[in-house]
């Protein structure tokens, strides 16, 4: 009897090992998520976490939005002008749904954070805010918050094409010591569990995000950095073009999903 049990156990183990192997051996390029199945990462969170996001008065990310509103009105730099002197907050509606975007003056791809810093440098004659600084996160949160409910709409034109292709390649490329790609988890196996956590589709429509794990607000780049560490891959420095290309591919992949800034961070995840 015990021998039989042991054999069974071994067989089960073997089957598990084989299925794990087949996941690893599967082609690295994932199948894209069909439009009808596309969903916000909000859908894979627990009801308790969703409740925190649903109510602005209990979502701690709102502290950054309120700080951002203050910064928006604050005169700064050698030019001594405020964001609000040129733009109305209402005119920011829909902006976050179009980023990353091609910036004509510098002929580069830019995400929202970098675009905010460009405005600081060119219009305010001020020093740019550091990545993950309270100020930059607060202003990005305030600007993205204006777009809540606006569907993401990214059109890939000739100028964006090379960045987009690079982003897609990166998303589908195996990397790190675990030798897995973003697509293997988030295109092929979303909705399944890894170490007890539901694998989300990795949609970028709620950023910046307040994560319980960080106990503060963080950018999409910081979140991507976490995933790279989980894959045992090398991370890029903040602001690297690789992140922004990846952000562009992810935004295009999320076309149609509504901006829901501020996402209230998922439950503590296995890959964080």
């Amino acid at each position, binding site marked *: 009897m015990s021998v039989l049990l042991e054999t069974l156990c071994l067989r089960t183990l073997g089957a598990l090992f084989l299925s794990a192997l087949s996941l690893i051996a599967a082609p690295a390029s994932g199948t894209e998520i069909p439009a009808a199945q596309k969903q916000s990462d909000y859908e894979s969170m627990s009801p308790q976490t969703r409740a925190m996001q649903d109510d602005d008065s209990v979502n701690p990310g709102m502290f950054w939005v309120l700080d951002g509103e203050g910064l928006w009105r604050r005169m700064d730099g050698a030019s001594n002008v405020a964001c609000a002197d040129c733009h109305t907050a209402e005119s920011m509606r829909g902006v976050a749904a179009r980023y990353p975007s091609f910036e004509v003056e510098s002929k580069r791809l830019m995400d929202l954070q970098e675009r905010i810093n460009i405005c600081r440098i060119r219009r305010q004659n001020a020093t740019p805010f550091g990545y993950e600084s309270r100020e930059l996160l607060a202003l990005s949160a305030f600007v993205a918050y204006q777009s809540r409910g606006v569907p993401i709409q990214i059109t890939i034109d000739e100028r964006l094409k090379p960045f987009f292709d690079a982003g897609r390649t990166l998303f589908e490329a195996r990397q790190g010591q675990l030798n897995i790609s973003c697509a293997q988890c988030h295109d092929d196996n979303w909705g399944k569990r890894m170490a007890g956590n539901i694998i989300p589709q990795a949609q970028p429509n709620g950023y910046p995000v307040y994560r319980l794990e960080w*106990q503060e607000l963080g950018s999409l780049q910081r979140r991507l950095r976490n995933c790279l560490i989980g894959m045992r891959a090398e991370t890029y420095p903040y602001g690297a073009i690789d992140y922004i290309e990846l952000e562009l591919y992810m935004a295009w992949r999320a076309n149609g999903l509504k901006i829901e800034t501020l996402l209230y961070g998922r439950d503590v995840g296995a890959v964080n």
Partner: protein
Amino acid sequence: MARALINVPRKARRGEVIEIKTLVSHPMETGYRRDNVGNRIPRDIISRFACMYNGTEVFRADLFPAVAANPFLSFFTVATESGTLEFQWTDDHGNTQTASTSIEVE
């Protein structure tokens, strides 16, 4: 910089049980963590929260290092009369942050 978010119903019927939600911006540093060079980061937490309804304390809580940053507290009280609700968060050093809101009881 924003410090506290309070959610209290603006109006209530006399005798109604109302929910009060409070969120305060605070790092809640435990005192157990170390920085990049190994120095201990000093403890800095809110250790006491109190809510006064027209001067009478209706809710109080002691907080400890295991509480996450930006503590969220929600509790219930009975709407007895129109007036103000005052909130106090006191940290380890005795510094107090306050916020207040009014309620109309019919």
